[in-house]
């Protein structure tokens, strides 16, 4: 039984989510940012627009959360579209 408990904890640590955060940039066009979110994450136009507006009004938006490796890949893709994106460990983990 104790072994099972340790395994579960380790698994939970490994699965700690990472956030992909996009930061506001006055140069990137709103239509361009929306298009990039649709292309990179496959989001609907509505969801992509919501994230774009969050970036625009709040300065940042968590556009995706999940495994670190995938998050790194998304940040790389966003950089390839010249968006300012960073990888952050999700708070509370």
């Amino acid at each position, binding site marked *: 039984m104790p072994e099972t408990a340790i395994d579960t904890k380790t698994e939970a640590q490994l699965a700690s989510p990472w956030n992909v955060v996009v930061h506001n940039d*006055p140069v*990137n066009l709103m*239509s*361009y940012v929306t*298009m990039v979110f649709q292309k990179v994450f496959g989001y609907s136009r509505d969801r992509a627009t919501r994230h774009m507006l969050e970036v625009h009004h709040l300065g940042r938006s968590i556009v995706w959360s999940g495994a670190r490796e995938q998050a790194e890949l998304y940040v790389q893709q966003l950089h390839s579209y010249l968006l300012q*994106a*960073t990888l952050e460990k999700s708070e509370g983990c």
Partner: protein
Amino acid sequence: MLIRKWKKKAIEFSCIEQIEAELLRQVPACCDPDEGSKAEARIFPSPTNTSDPDLLRDWDEYVRPELRHLFRSAKETVEEDIGSLKMKVGHLGRFLVPLEHGEPWLSALNQARLILAAKFEFSEAELSALDLPKTFSQRELVLHQINFYAAIQERIIEILNTGEDNKPSGESA
């Protein structure tokens, strides 16, 4: 200048004035940030706001070279397309951009705008200002250049998103 979809396979730039041709030809040259400059830092931002030496090292070693290659490739595509623009005295110019070059064009225009904005340190207020400038310094002209490239980007995005074909319109970038 008119920008519209042409025969479902290209983006047509037509009715191009001399000054517009000159600004288009400047796009590739604007895509080269000086080494160690703010512009270069903007084109290749850090992937994290925290200290993560392993991630930063891997990013420098593997990701940046790939991004550099991608940006250079987009710039070269635009350079090649603009090469087909021949201006004759007294005539307006025209050239075609294959639809599959739409994304490289968006990338090169974005690179140019980001680099110019970083180089001339434009504020968010300046970039979103709708007022006409009161002076005509080099800085003001560069702001016009950034906005000209933005208008072209908007038009290309519209064409790529809507699939519009040969729409007769007076919309200009």
